[in-house]
């Protein structure tokens, strides 16, 4: 490993020890001052039937549909749910189910009661969500944290370091002119960590030997062997080539073998680009993520990106077809 790579990695691990993940600045979003997003709205929440007999074969269906929620949960017993859905429930006693939708401006709730005649209504904690026992971090057979799950970084993942250039590297800056369609319109892979920074989720499937990352955006995927070294020759690639090893409970992914066709923090780079990604599952619901980006031909010091990948077990990776209306995107702007 080259000296600069060791420096990058040591810096990264020192940062981990300092617990500096939470120091990322607030995310930027809208170009200009964003309007306030609409509040979470519960469009429907029902129980059918609303009265059941309470026997082992008796059940009712909860159905709901919500708009604009960042998170949704039904209590008691059910937990996190998707934006719309149905759930079969079989309470033995009269039970009130509460749907809590959290979005811009806070949470809104709605409740439905399933009556089981002749029973004493179940007492549900006033803040049932807070009363839920935290789910432990899952572990692989080798004892390491299991990173598997569907996550999204949303706008938490940001460049959190200064960009300092080596002498003469100013020419690598990409000038954005008014009217540019943006790099994404080409549908080419954006690289690492840019693929994780997009507002789309990613699915991680983790075994002791391999970390597979499947991105909804562009339907990209990375297969990351754990415990292996890079091959001697790495053909240039948009997403580079990845291998990983453990440092304690942090998975360190070493990505190199990039082509020079992507843009990082507004700068092109060379094929000497190296990225170290750090994945640290700090809770069942979160992975703290960092990426250290170095290219000694462009950057005088490694760039640091940091953010939180939040688990969304209620989601599925959806279909994403980049080229459909990008083929003639310009036509939308005809005067």
């Amino acid at each position, binding site marked *: 490993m080259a000296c600069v790579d060791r420096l990058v990695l040591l810096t990264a691990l020192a940062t981990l020890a300092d617990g500096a993940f939470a120091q990322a600045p607030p995310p*930027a*979003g*809208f*170009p*200009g*001052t*964003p*309007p*306030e*997003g*609409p*509040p979470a*709205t519960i*469009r429907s929440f029902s129980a059918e039937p609303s009265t059941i007999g309470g026997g082992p074969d008796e059940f009712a269906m909860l159905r709901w*549909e*919500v*708009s*604009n*929620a960042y998170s949704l949960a039904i209590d008691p017993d059910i937990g996190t749910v998707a*934006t*719309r859905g149905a759930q079969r429930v079989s309470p033995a006693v009269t039970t009130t189910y509460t749907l809590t939708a959290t979005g*811009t401006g806070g949470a809104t709730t709605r409740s439905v009661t399933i009556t089981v005649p002749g029973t004493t209504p179940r007492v549900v904690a006033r803040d049932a969500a807070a009363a839920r026992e935290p789910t432990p971090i899952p572990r692989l057979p080798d004892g390491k944290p299991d990173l598997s799950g569907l996550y999204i970084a*949303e*706008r938490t993942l940001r460049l959190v370091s200064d960009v300092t250039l080596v002498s003469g590297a100013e020419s690598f800056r990409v000038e*954005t*002119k*008014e*009217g*540019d*369609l*943006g790099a*994404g*319109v080409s549908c080419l892979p*954006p690289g690492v960590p*840019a693929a994780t*920074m*997009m*507002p*789309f989720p990613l699915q991680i499937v983790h075994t002791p030997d391999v970390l597979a990352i499947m991105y*909804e*955006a562009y339907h990209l995927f990375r297969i990351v062997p754990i415990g292996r070294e890079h091959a001697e020759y790495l053909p240039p690639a948009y997403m580079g080539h990845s291998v990983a090893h453990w440092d304690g409970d942090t998975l360190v992914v070493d990505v190199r073998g990039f082509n020079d066709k992507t*843009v*990082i*923090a*507004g700068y092109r780079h060379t094929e000497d680009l190296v990225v170290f990604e750090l994945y640290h599952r700090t809770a069942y619901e979160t992975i703290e993520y960092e990426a250290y980006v170095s290219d000694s031909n462009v950057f005088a010091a490694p760039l640091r990106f940091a953010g939180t990948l939040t688990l969304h077990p209620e*989601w599925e990776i*959806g*279909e*994403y*077809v*980049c*080229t*459909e*209306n*990008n083929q003639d*995107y310009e036509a*939308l*702007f*005809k*005067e």
Partner: protein
Amino acid sequence: MTWRLSLLAGAIATLPAQAHHSWARYDGDHVVTVTGTITAVEWTNPHVVMRFTTMDESGQPAEWTMEMDPPTLLDRYGLRHDTITVGMEVKITGVRARSGAPMMRAVMIELPDGTQQRVSSRV
């Protein structure tokens, strides 16, 4: 004309690296809300497109186009593809093309039942 300028002033941020379609084409300094009647919905990737008719400054009908987030994101925000239909009158909040083209990038739409629906990851 039914444009209602919200006059939300602010500095234009550098184009985020994660943007797909560039926001540089839009006037991010001014968020507007317009009422229109939907004439077409194209449930397409990577951006859902809606055509609508509104009234211009002289009170004449004008054909406009707006783009929203991709279908997968709209679904997670709670917007179904069959919720917005041709003939429906909606209020659209977003930003206009800098070029003056009748084009906007929507961040929120208000449905006839009064429900405000997020349609962009930026809000």
